[in-house]
């Protein structure tokens, strides 16, 4: 009961936020929080629930971003039409990369994902058709509403809110399905899960593909909001890092962990950027680095695990901190 009250308060606040805090900066901030929350929630499926720490998720983000901008720049279509294309690309890539990579455990998996993302970034940077280092642009003047190019951040806010709700619903549904149980078992001990007959490789691959699809949607939305994508903003390792840190700060493997992480870190970054100007970019990541080190050292389950720890004795979901 208590949980539902909290949930409705959060939902009511999320819906009312852009009306309560209606300056363009605040609305944009809200939209960005939701956007990163989508990406971090998508990462959470494979990084949090399955315990496979991908540091190369930006590659799927880039699939979506490039598909959306490519649909416009190459075929004159609305970027919206790029979304399914991006999903297909991301899922395909996840399948190809996932089969050999998911066999690797722990650090090896993380390193392989970095290498995949960096390889992709270098290839795209040197591909003239994809705009090389300059990247691709979306429509500068919207031709109709389907171009999803708005001056105000308000439409983006509600669009992102809807997509985030879908992402969280999928995640919630997944955790309560057979797949969720498999994933938790695999995270605790892959060997034990296998010996009890859980199809570990297949489940991990499905989680990876699902996560890739949702991440590519986040990438497409990002590109639409900013109106362009280049190798740094679409495939740079720092995007992966941001996504990962948000999920880990809030609580990897917890449904609302990524949202909490995004709600803390996105304002921090925007504010430090606007206060410090050009010098801020470097300093933001110094702060990011310090935050990650501190979480890793003192609170590896994320901030939300502080709350859930109390109720753990009642319902042990196995999520969050698993020593």
């Amino acid at each position, binding site marked *: 009961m208590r949980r539902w009250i909290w949930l409705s308060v959060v939902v009511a606040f999320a819906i009312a936020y852009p009306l309560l805090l209606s300056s363009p900066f605040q609305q944009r901030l809200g939209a960005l929080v939701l956007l990163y929350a989508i990406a971090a929630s998508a990462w959470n499926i494979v990084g949090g629930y399955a*315990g496979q720490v991908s540091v190369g998720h930006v590659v799927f983000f880039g699939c979506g971003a490039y598909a959306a901008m490519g649909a416009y720049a190459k075929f004159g279509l609305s970027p919206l039409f790029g979304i399914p294309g991006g999903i297909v690309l991301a899922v395909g890539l996840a399948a190809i990369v996932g089969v*050999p*990579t998911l066999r*690797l455990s722990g650090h090896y998996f993380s390193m392989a994902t970095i290498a995949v993302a960096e*390889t992709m970034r270098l290839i795209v940077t040197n591909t003239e058709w994809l705009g090389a280092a300059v990247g691709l642009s979306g429509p500068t003047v919207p031709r109709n509403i389907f171009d999803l190019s708005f001056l105000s951040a308000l439409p983006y806010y509600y669009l992102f809110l809807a997509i985030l709700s879908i992402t969280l619903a999928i995640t919630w549904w997944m955790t309560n399905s057979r797949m969720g149980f498999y994933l938790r078992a695999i995270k605790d001990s892959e060997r034990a899960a296998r010996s009890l007959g859980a199809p570990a490789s297949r489940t991990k691959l499905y989680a990876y593909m699902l996560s890739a699809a949702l991440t590519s949607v986040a990438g497409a939305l990002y590109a639409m909001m900013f109106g362009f994508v280049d190798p740094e903003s679409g495939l740079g390792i720092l995007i992966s890092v941001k996504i990962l840190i948000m999920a880990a700060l809030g609580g*990897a493997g917890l449904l609302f962990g990524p949202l909490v992480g995004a709600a803390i870190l996105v304002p921090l970054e925007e504010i430090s950027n606007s206060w410090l100007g050009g010098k801020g970019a470097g300093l933001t990541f110094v702060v990011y680095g310090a*935050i990650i*080190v501190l979480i890793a*050292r003192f609170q590896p389950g994320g901030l939300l695990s502080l709350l859930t720890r109390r109720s753990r004795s009642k319902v042990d979901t196995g999520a969050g*901190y698993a020593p």
Partner: protein
Amino acid sequence: MSFVLVQVIVGGLLLGAVYALFSSGLTLVWGMMNIVNFAHGDFVMLGMYVAYVVYTLMGGGPILGAPLATLVLATLGVVVYFALIRGIMKGPMLAQILGTFGLALLLRYSVFWWFGANFLSMPPNIVGGTYAFAGLRIEASRLLAGVVALLVTLGLHLLLTRTSLGSKMLAVAEDQTAAQLMGIRPDTMQAIAWAIAAGATGLAGALIANFFYIVPTVGETLGIVAFVTVSLGGFGSVPGALVAGLLIGVIESLSGYLIGAIYKDIVVYVLFLFFLWFRPQGLMGKM
């Protein structure tokens, strides 16, 4: 074989020796504690900046810069071990990855913030000029870096296999509890391992600072090079890292020469993935 090709291969070998040097630091820590230092490349980057700062403040070139960079980084290694690694070593996998990854960001962007994103390069100093040798032209700074790196890597191997300190470290790697019962302190040995590993990166950074581009993000590329070297040579093996480092240096400069400079990183990354996927135990390692 044309002269140019020989020249390219020799250049690759000299750079590869430096790769071997800092990769043996990574492989040592990895083999001993089963922890991967994602900040390893950024340690090398710091070494480069230390050498740069030493030169701009005091002059003197690598003779002064290299020992100082080694010392500074070795100290940093010990600090990192006690402040961070010891706490996350037995924690969950996510904490281990996040911990050193966060450290990488912290170091990279602190330097970025302080020095800016511009490419720096060492002003011409004592080890300038090139040697002509049997038709080959070799830059003095590259020759110095390659030779010193090779000797130090070999020395590291001897230290680990021929001295009592090395035996103690291997004992801790093998079985901490048993080592403890023999009167060896795992904590001290692991701190020493971190000092050696980080010191090696400092030396390597100072050595390549003379001819490499100095930029805060160079650590990312060098970190991946170290991962490739270690995965190729087998985890925990210094001789493996040496052979693999030389090999990667040659592959990199050959592909840079034959296919184009922009593709040399791609070749290294793809090689890395190939090894992780199909031969994760490395060329010489055992599973």
